[in-house]
């Protein structure tokens, strides 16, 4: 799974994810998100519009990341999943918990404490 990371203010990071998210591609992503939080990004936005597949392994990784951000009084949001990926969030009852929304604007709204000013330009 390819990823592209962009800073989001001083305490946040936007990850654009590409391809399939399963037990093969998941573990390196878990590492990457964990490191980002360790390095101070307590607000994470995952752009999942280019993710073609996700199952419970992906869910588990995202849940792990949201827990880590919240330990730092931060949070996580998921932006723009395609129909098949959205269905997995919905069926698992994790859509609200994981702040699954359609636009980056909405995601910022969900991340209370994220310094919006720094982000306006994105």
């Amino acid at each position, binding site marked *: 799974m390819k990823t592209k990371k962009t800073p989001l203010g001083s305490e946040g990071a936007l990850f654009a994810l590409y391809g399939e998210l399963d*037990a093969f591609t998941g573990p390196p992503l878990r590492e990457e998100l964990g490191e980002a939080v360790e390095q101070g990004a307590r607000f994470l936005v995952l752009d999942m519009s280019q993710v073609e597949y996700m199952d*419970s392994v992906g869910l588990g990784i995202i849940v792990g990341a949201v827990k880590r951000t919240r330990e730092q009084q931060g949070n996580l949001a998921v932006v723009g999943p395609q*129909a*098949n990926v959205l*269905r997995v969030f919905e069926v698992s*009852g994790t859509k609200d*918990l994981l702040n699954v929304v359609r636009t980056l604007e909405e995601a910022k709204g969900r991340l209370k404490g994220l310094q919006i000013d720094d982000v306006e330009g994105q």
Partner: protein
Amino acid sequence: MSSLERDTVEMRIPCEPRFLSVVRLAVSGAAARAGLGISEVDDLKVATSEACTNVIEHAYPEGSAACGPIGIRMVVREGELRVEVEDQGVGFDPKRLPKVEPEERVMEEGGLGIYLMHNLMDEVKIESAPGSGTKVVLVKRAAR
């Protein structure tokens, strides 16, 4: 192969996550031949992947070196795909799965695989017992 099996595709993959995508592609193809629609095919991809991932993660607790192959059978009928995922691993008692709510499971970062199968498929059957391997049967039908 008897004439009864003219509707069955069989597959065997090594017990490794890199082959999950190959299984999903084959399942997509078989599901299309069964006349299923896009969202039904998507559901089958997830449920089949969950079953195969479980073999990789749970069936051989001694470690991946001991992990035997995963057998996948796809039975293509008009308007229905049946997928069977089989291993010769440790097995488990499906009745003794912890009964927790999905919200709790989620915060444990796991335990959602079988829950998803049930919610995505028309039928799920798990034949397993400690010591004698596991067979998961998934059935998805075309919406009318």
